């Protein structure tokens, strides 16, 4: 037996551990363990009462067995017995067992809680410490219920020992994290804040963690912690390395406490008090200065601790995002680290720079490091570091360097680790779309992606390129020519065949004039790939062939021959067979006119969130890049458009980007008459694009909020960390009035506060809106009101956009939300009898007057709620009209200045299928359409 046990060595335990270590096989180990378990069981069950030492030893053995990975289903009661022992080591082992093998047996929990209660009341600091550790280790709800009220008292009591205070603070933190509802806020909170002033640095260290978490949830209550934290931090960073004695770690004064204080400060905006703010700036400058000083030790611990504080300080600088000087210095510091010989520092510098890239002050400074980052991509040996480099390139990309970055990423893709290829593909696809000035470049890039990493190009990517080509007629010819050329390669990826098949099927005619790509050559080229492809691709190609029959009548017979062949008509795959049969038949019996109608060019796709971006987010989860995306997204929701430097904005103004157009933002970002997004959703990529110099893209979530207002008139339209927008509105006949309330949630003034209501040209002719300007200054905590007078001239589809721009701190904020002025607001309900209703219903039976939508229920199907929504929608709810009592019917008149439009609606729920069928009949097709859209979103 090795003589390694120390202190109170339990000989039996050491022997047992040696035995286990000497076991030659897993089987032998299990045998030895089973023997031991049987032994312990018999001891526990034996008649003879066990003494404390034996109990402790056996409990400890059980613990060891459990930690080896075996299940333990007894011994809890003996462990609980140990808790009430007066011997420290017995108590300690009892607590350890309970902490590791948490048991939900309620009787046991009662006993455990009892023992803890006794120890907490013992006033013996060592016992109290054990009890607190146990509560923190278990952290269950039951523990919180029993002790969440008691621990704050221990924490702030004047006579509590420092070490107990430390344990109590962190124990309370654990309980707050698991069961925040059970931790009562109260008098103690203000006293906890003052622990930041405690003279014992250990107490401050523990308390700071607690305060940080509490402050995140209750920023107002813990506001005073800011100035206390700043002065504490200031005392630390200016102290000589020996001042703090034991809290100096390898010549770095209190690194843990410093980092925790810097974290606490990241819960708040920059301090308002100029003195505090100045002191903090001084601290941050000192930390940055120290980074330039020669190291006081060659030990890695010294540099790690020093740089840990430095990185945390940089995080705070980035969080405040208000001191250009500090931001640029931070960026330069990180730039130095990018070339450091320590891999860890390079990794962290790349990561930290990613967040810096999104600050308007430092974006340009970050961009100067592009060559180093590209070099890292090529030379780093660690895949996690290369991953960070990819993330950073993605973050620093803007219109000025997109071509270079995309080219480098494509380059890297050829040799990239398989684990990150798909992500790079997605990123390249997003950047190429977002910054495409020239769509031929975009098409080339995506085809390159398919060529280099075809296996990693997900459906979303090639769907997207097709959507874009279809929506942009200036690139269609080029796309057709390019895919035609790419398909010439002897071996090309199946994804290329898909893209090629689709694009040639739609736009092959654009290159058919060239004898080198005549219809027959196009067809033969595609058909030469046919047999190598999977079933879905072959199905796609068959559709291409039938489109060719329409586009190129001259090769109709060739195609019919192919369709007629046994390998098609008798294909074992039912989908392929069906297509072959149907397409052959269609090509034989349909006249050219009918063919032309059936096989008409695809209509443009409605714009929506880029599926690629959604995929990237899904793939990465809340990890690194996505985190950045989230940050950017967050930023764009509260400071839309400010994420890009002004110079870039300027260039975007002079050359309106085609991408903005594509993404539905309108090509005239300058004018207030810019048409609002043509669809209900704005492309997410676009949310952080730099195209908006005037009108920010819609804030995320704006659509949801918009939909909530269709059936109601009052509520909160938008809210972020800075601003809340509330609405109150009333409508009568074709007139309405809306009160918009802008609440400044911060304590800082908003300057140049300019809300603008924007209607597209179309909308302007049907909706008259008059707004009064509001005071350009909104004080912290204040609310201003704006009135919008509304007149509905004729029926309309889109919604006006409310754009808000202002300056907050040093940053320019720009955000847009849809203003919920919808056609149904001008409804007047009409009551009518069953007979009247059905008579009118029949009168409106022209197919153009009826619009129907069948959709899945998004909310629980509750009849009462449905009724309320239909009434809220504005029509009358007609009871006992529909023969089926489960159905809902409504009637009303839409009032516009020029005309009145009678509307009937019928909603048929199918509880079993969780579906609805909604039918709208009005005298005007567009009105039926719009009302149906609006109402469908409500259930």
């Amino acid at each position: 037996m090795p003589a390694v046990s120390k202190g109170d060595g339990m000989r039996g335990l050491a022997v047992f551990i040696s035995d286990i270590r000497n076991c030659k096989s897993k089987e032998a180990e299990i045998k030895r363990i089973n023997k031991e378990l049987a032994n312990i069981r018999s001891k526990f069950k034996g008649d003879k009462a066990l003494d404390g030492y034996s109990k402790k030893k056996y409990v400890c053995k059980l613990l060891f067995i459990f930690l080896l990975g075996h299940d333990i289903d007894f011994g809890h009661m003996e462990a609980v017995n140990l808790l009430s022992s007066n011997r420290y080591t017995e108590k300690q082992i009892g607590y350890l067992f309970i902490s590791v093998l948490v048991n939900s047996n309620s009787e046991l929990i009662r006993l455990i809680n009892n023992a803890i209660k006794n120890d907490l009341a013992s006033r013996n600091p060592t016992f109290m410490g054990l009890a607190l550790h146990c509560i923190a280790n278990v952290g269950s709800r039951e523990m919180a219920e029993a002790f969440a009220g008691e621990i704050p008292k221990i924490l702030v009591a004047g006579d509590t020992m420092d070490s107990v205070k430390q344990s109590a603070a962190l124990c309370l933190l654990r309980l707050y994290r698991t069961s925040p509802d059970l931790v009562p806020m109260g008098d103690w909170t203000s006293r906890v804040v003052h622990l930041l002033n405690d003279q014992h640095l250990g107490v401050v260290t523990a308390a700071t963690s607690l305060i940080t978490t509490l402050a995140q949830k209750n920023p107002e209550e813990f506001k005073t912690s800011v100035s206390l934290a700043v002065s504490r931090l200031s005392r630390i960073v200016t102290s000589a390395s020996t001042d703090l004695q034991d809290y100096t770690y390898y010549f770095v004064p209190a690194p843990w406490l410093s980092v925790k204080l810097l974290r606490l400060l990241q819960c708040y905006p920059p301090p308002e008090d100029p003195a505090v703010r100045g002191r903090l700036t001084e601290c941050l400058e000192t930390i940055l200065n120290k980074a330039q000083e020669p190291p006081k030790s060659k030990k890695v611990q010294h540099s790690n601790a020093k740089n840990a504080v430095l990185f945390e300080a940089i995080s705070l600088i980035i969080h405040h995002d208000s001191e250009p000087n500090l931001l640029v210095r931070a960026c330069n510091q990180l730039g130095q680290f990018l070339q450091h010989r320590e891999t860890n520092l390079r990794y962290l510098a790349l990561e930290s720079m990613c967040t810096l890239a999104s600050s308007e002050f430092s974006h340009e400074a970050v961009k100067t490091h592009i060559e180093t980052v590209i070099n890292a991509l090529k030379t780093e040996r660690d895949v996690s570091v290369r991953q960070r480099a990819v993330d950073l390139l993605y973050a620093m990309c803007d219109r000025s360097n997109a071509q270079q970055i995309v080219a480098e990423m494509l380059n890297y893709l050829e040799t990239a680790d398989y684990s990150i290829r798909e992500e790079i593909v997605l990123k390249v696809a997003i950047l190429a779309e977002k910054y495409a000035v020239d769509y031929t470049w975009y098409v080339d890039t995506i085809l390159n992606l398919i060529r280099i990493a075809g296996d990693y190009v997900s459906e979303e990517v090639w769907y997207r390129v097709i959507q874009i080509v279809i929506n942009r007629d200036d690139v269609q010819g080029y796309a057709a020519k390019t895919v035609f050329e790419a398909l010439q390669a002897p071996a090309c990826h199946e994804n290329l065949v898909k893209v090629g098949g689709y694009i040639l099927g739609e736009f092959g005619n654009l290159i058919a004039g060239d004898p080198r790509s005549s219809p027959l050559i196009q067809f033969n080229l595609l058909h030469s790939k046919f047999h190598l492809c999977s079933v879905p691709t072959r199905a796609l190609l068959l559709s291409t062939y039938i489109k060719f029959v329409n586009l190129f009548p001259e090769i109709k017979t060739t195609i019919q021959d192919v369709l007629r062949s046994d390998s098609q008509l008798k294909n074992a795959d039912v989908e392929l067979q069906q297509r072959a049969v149907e397409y052959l038949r269609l090509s034989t019996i349909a006249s050219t006119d009918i063919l032309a109608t059936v096989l008409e060019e695809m209509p443009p796709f409605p714009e929506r969130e880029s599926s690629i971006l959604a995929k990237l987010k899904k793939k990465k989860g809340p990890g690194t890049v996505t985190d950045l995306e989230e940050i950017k997204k967050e930023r764009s929701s509260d400071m839309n458009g400010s994420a890009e430097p002004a110079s870039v904005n300027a260039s975007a103004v002079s050359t309106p980007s085609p991408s903005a157009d594509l993404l539905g933002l309108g090509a005239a970002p300058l004018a207030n008459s810019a048409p609002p997004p043509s669809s209900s959703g704005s492309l997410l990529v676009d949310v952080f694009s730099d195209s908006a110099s005037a009108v920010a893209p819609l804030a995320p979530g704006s659509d949801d909020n918009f939909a909530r207002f269709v059936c109601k008139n009052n509520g909160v339209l938008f809210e972020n960390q800075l601003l809340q927008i509330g609405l109150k509105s009333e409508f009568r006949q074709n007139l309405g009035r809306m009160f918009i309330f802008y609440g400044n949630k911060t304590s800082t003034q908003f300057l140049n506060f300019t809300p603008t209501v924007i209607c597209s040209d179309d909308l302007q002719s049907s909706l008259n809106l008059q707004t009064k300007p509001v005071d350009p200054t909104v004080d912290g905590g204040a609310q201003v009101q704006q009135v919008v007078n509304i007149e509905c001239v004729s029926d309309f589809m889109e919604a006006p956009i409310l754009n808000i721009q202002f300056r907050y701190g040093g940053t320019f904020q720009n955000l847009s939300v849809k203003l919920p002025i919808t056609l149904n607001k001008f409804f007047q309900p009409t009551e009518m009898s069953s007979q009247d209703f059905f008579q009118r219903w029949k009168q409106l039976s022209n197919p153009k007057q009826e619009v129907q939508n069948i959709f899945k229920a998004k909310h629980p199907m509750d009849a009462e709620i449905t009724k309320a929504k239909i009434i809220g929608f504005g029509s009358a709810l007609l009871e006992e009209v529909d023969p089926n009592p489960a159905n809902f019917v409504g009637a009303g008149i839409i009032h516009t200045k020029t005309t009145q439009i009678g509307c009937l609606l019928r909603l048929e729920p199918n509880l079993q299928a969780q579906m609805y069928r909604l039918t709208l009949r009005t005298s005007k097709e567009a009105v039926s359409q719009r009302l149906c859209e609006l109402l469908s979103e409500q259930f």
Partner: protein
Amino acid sequence: MIHFILLFSRQGKLRLQKWYTTLPDKEKKKIVREIVQIILSRNQKTSSFVDWKDLKLVYKRYASLYFCCAIEDQDNELLTLEIVHRYVELLDRYFGNVCELDIIFNFEKAYFILDEFIIGGEVQETSKRSAVKAIEDSDMLQETVEEYMNKPAF
């Protein structure tokens, strides 16, 4: 906060596990297997940080033992490395030239020392002197070895 700390040997044997979040045992075992495999397959010259799900693994090897902490995204990676180092120092101070065997045979002590240093995934006491003193104080409360030796072994 730290979500968990794992100590394992180069052979992949788990020597100590400390969880600061509540998870079912099955889940814990799965996580341990996965993480040990990830860390052991990393090359020598790589960084000490690995993204893992929505957490970040920070690890360092001391002789035959790997120390690995799982932290949250906003936690400080470098300082986590020093948390590991400080823990090793505390073990070293207590055992005197600590080695893997000390931790195997005195696993309960390794837990007690960790509890003095970290509670609920947050650093409680960074002063080596205070932490060691707390542990030594508790040893003072123990009975003498002789007292135990008189007790039967099994």
